[in-house]
């Protein structure tokens, strides 16, 4: 089993460098500032809402904005960082070092995970700040909801890295967003499959496709618990842990597939 996931030292070297790259990139920093600004300004929307619904809007909309922006950051960085290495040929000097290509991918992933964590903390600070300003009571479930949001972004990062291991950046971005949208609405399919009416109950072919989608795509509703937060349903750390295991399983799968493709790829 030793070395199944590669050498931690080499992965860490790439992760650290990925983190520095984002930290020194003006476009990424701009994206981060825009994200925080968006979360803060989304709170202004609540000013238009009716007083008793204000808390709901603040909590729900704020969390949704954070989750969406984390995904946007995950997709853009996941796609751009790999493309840049290939396009500028910086990979030539990296991949010819004693390092596995799977380790380079893992390093990129962990570097991005750290960046997403920092972006999350900053956006969450803007969110919590605006909640406090409006006297909305804080609950510790919010921390759990935020952690789940981060997990979703990590999963999307691994999807983006997977697609960038063989597709062009534009296609990778489109595919990754496709997985995000489909994964977000998978529970709808599950409901339809469980029902006795409609096309999915009667048409065998449609049923097979829907089933394949349910099995072959991550169910992202696992990570989006805004409703529970509003309704006051506790989330609990055991749920977070289970979601984490689900998330890790998908990440390892996408990483392994990406590594398989990446190992075989020519860097001509």
């Amino acid at each position, binding site marked *: 089993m030793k070395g199944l996931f590669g050498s931690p*030292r*080499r992965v*860490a*070297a*790439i992760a*650290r*460098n990925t983190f*520095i*790259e984002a930290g*020194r*990139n003006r476009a990424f920093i701009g994206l981060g500032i825009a994200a925080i600004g968006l979360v803060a300004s989304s709170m202004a929307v609540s000013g238009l809402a009716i007083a008793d619904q204000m808390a709901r809007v603040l909590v729900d909309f704020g969390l949704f904005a954070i989750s969406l922006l984390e995904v946007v950051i995950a997709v853009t960085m996941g796609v751009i960082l790999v493309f840049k290495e290939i396009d*500028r*040929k*910086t990979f*030539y*000097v*990296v*991949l*010819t*070092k*004693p*390092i*596995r290509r799977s380790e380079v991918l893992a390093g990129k992933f962990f570097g991005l995970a750290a960046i997403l964590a920092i972006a999350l903390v900053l956006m969450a600070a803007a969110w919590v700040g605006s909640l406090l300003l409006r006297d909305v009571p804080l609950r510790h479930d919010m921390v759990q909801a935020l952690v789940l949001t981060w997990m979703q972004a990590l999963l999307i990062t691994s999807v983006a890295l997977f697609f960038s291991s063989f597709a062009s950046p534009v296609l990778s971005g489109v595919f990754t967003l496709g997985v995000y949208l489909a994964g977000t609405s998978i529970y709808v399919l599950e409901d339809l499959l469980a029902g006795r009416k409609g096309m999915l109950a009667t048409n065998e072919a449609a049923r097979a496709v829907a089933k394949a989608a349910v099995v072959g795509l991550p169910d992202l509703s696992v990570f989006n618990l805004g409703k529970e937060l509003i309704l006051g349903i506790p989330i609990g750390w055991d749920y977070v842990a289970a979601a984490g295991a689900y998330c890790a399983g998908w990440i390892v799968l996408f990483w392994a597939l990406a590594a398989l493709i990446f190992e*075989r790829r*020519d*860097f*001509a």
Partner: protein
Amino acid sequence: MDDVIAVEGLRKVFRTPFRRRRVEAVKGVTFQVRRGEIFGFLGPNGAGKTTTLKMLVGLIRPTSGRARVLGGDPGTLEVMARVGFLPEQPYFYDYLTPGELLDVFGQVFGLPRALRRQRIDSLLDLVGLGDAKGRVLRKFSKGMLQRVGIAQALLNDPELVLLDEPMSGLDPVGRKEIIDLMARLKDQGKTVFFSSHILADIERLCDRVVILHKGEVKHAGTLKELLTQGERKEILVAGELPDGLSGRPGLLATDRVGPGVTRLAVESAAADAMLRALLDARLEVLQVADRGITLEELFVKTAGSGPVGAREVAG
């Protein structure tokens, strides 16, 4: 068996995915590089040098044939730990300083921190970037990037150094420095394998060379072997060569080298007859000298005598 590199029937066919075009960049190349030598991998642009080098470091897979590097498969961890590679026109993470870049690679190599620091400092001094240590690579010129590339190729104190066009992007002084550096690496017992389409200054450097053209090995051997084949004499005469003599057998080339001086290149075997004919024609012979073929001439001859080949050599 002390072959540091053994290449046998190596081929690479590139397929462009949408246009149905096939490019056979390397067409069954065979050669060996011995431990401790400086091996020149020469040929005009497009000969297939970079493609071959990329197969030797595992960046691309051969279509067929075999390459062994340091006794192992190209690109594996065990092999790459002992190899240094400079890509053609290298480019690096441009948001880092050269010190930071080398530190990342040093971590990948697993060098302890103290050793990293010491080696990075001495390497940057070695390639003449001691003063640019703190500057971001984005602001580096092509020649400076080339020097960073050499430094990163030596970071792991490799047994074998593979350099793709190490002299390109450098001025004559820089080229001289690289040549001296390669000679020093050889003195340290390392094997140096480098590609080049520029021949200036390298004649005395290489122990052996391969001349590649259109994906095929055209010449292989020591420079001495290559350059003494087709030995010739050079004759300088005053005045112009009469028409009657310009078509003589064994006359390889004529050109004007100064006011009223013509230079003839003549096959050695035909030199006596040619001299007699010149004297009979009452021409004043200024000088007769032995001359081997130059690498440059061999190169042009290999690349085809047309102006395209000549231009590639010059470029």
